[in-house]
């Protein structure tokens, strides 16, 4: 089946099997391996990306369902080599250890901050309920999101 979509500003058109998951299409067809797969049960959030501006789990969507969509993955977040403020905040606040959950955490955090630019700690924890981290204990992830919220207040 033919599909087309815009991923990180680039237009793509491919012929794929309907059973291809969106995450597989991104990783295996487009070679965008920044989006990870952490589970088979739609729970971990490692695969979180933005489809038409909203955070979704790309392992729980078929690529054919994203036909015509505009997609952003972790590879598309930086602007001309300049890291996104949320990416910077994760670096500066030790918001990752092994880094496996990080692309999903960052995509989820960017979406959360768009809807709620000044979240409380509790709101951050609730907002990241769909993203599991097996290393950090979440403490520095929450700290990173808080720091990003502060740094983005200048209108970044």
């Amino acid at each position, binding site marked *: 089946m033919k599909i087309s979509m815009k991923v990180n500003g680039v237009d793509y058109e491919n012929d794929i099997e*309907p059973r291809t998951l969106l995450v597989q299409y991104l990783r295996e067809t487009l070679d965008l391996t920044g989006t990870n797969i952490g589970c088979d*049960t739609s729970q971990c*959030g490692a695969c979180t990306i933005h489809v038409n501006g909203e955070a979704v789990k790309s392992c729980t969507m078929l690529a054919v369902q994203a036909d015509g969509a505009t997609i952003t993955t972790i590879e598309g977040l930086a602007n001309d080599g300049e890291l996104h403020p949320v990416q910077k905040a994760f670096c500066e606040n030790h918001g990752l250890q092994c880094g496996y959950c990080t692309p999903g955490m960052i995509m*989820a955090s960017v979406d959360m901050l768009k809807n709620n630019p000044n979240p409380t700690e509790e709101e951050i924890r609730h907002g990241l309920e*769909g993203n*599991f981290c097996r290393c950090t204990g979440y403490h520095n992830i929450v700290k990173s999101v808080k720091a990003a919220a502060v740094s983005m207040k200048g209108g970044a």
Partner: protein
Amino acid sequence: MYAAEFDYVRASSIEEAISLKAENDDSSLLAGGHSLIPAMKLRLSTPQKLIDISGLDQLKKISKNGSHISIGSLCTHKQCAESEIIQSNCPALSDAASVIGDPHVRTKGTIGGALAHSDPQADYPGATLALNATFVAKGPSGERTIEVDDYFIGLWETALGEGELLTEIRIAINSMNANSCYVKFPQPASRYPYVGCGVSLSSNNGTCSDIRVGFSGVGEWAFRDSGVESTLKGQPLNDSTIASAADKAAEGKTVLNDHFVSEEYRRAMSKVYAKRAMMQLS
């Protein structure tokens, strides 16, 4: 590849979806995909054809329609959680929608998909039982309505016919539904409810004049709890009458038992959550 092979087709109208379903024995409707796709990935479900109804915009509206609220079956959990119409007229439903899974699940999952799927561990069933909802189904032989009390009929089983599409959920606008809530004891990782309790309650001079209590997550399918209801109805609303009513929770019902939560613990938590819900409304 995760899922078995299948054909995929997008329905451009409700009528087309119904006829595609009728023409294809082994087909499934695809709404938000957040129950169906996980099941297909594990090959617990292997439909030959997927009929994608997610583009049917006429099923994505929430509106006031005379004496009731009308919720299109393709409204997402997020829409239901954030709708001012739902929050002010039947808060049990927005309460339930707001605690489903996580934000990403709520962005994609739909109320119609959840009610058609009827997972024993789902949130809307308990809330819609409390709210005395009416479901509108369309199939090859036309449209019909199903009352919530007749809807949940077995494990993963609803009164929806094989070829029928759930199109709308209706909730009456009245003071009892406006005084409703849904509380939940979630599985800490998946967030599916071990116990979900919806209550709507009306009172007159401090006396409970009517009450509906719905449980999900507790039994093999969602049920109304007439034991709790009849114990509180007609009684003055206070801590002790509410405690006595809550004590009847799930009495005489078959209660689930799994390696996370035993039957005994689920029964105990049913009482706790029924009490919390009733206290919140009194």
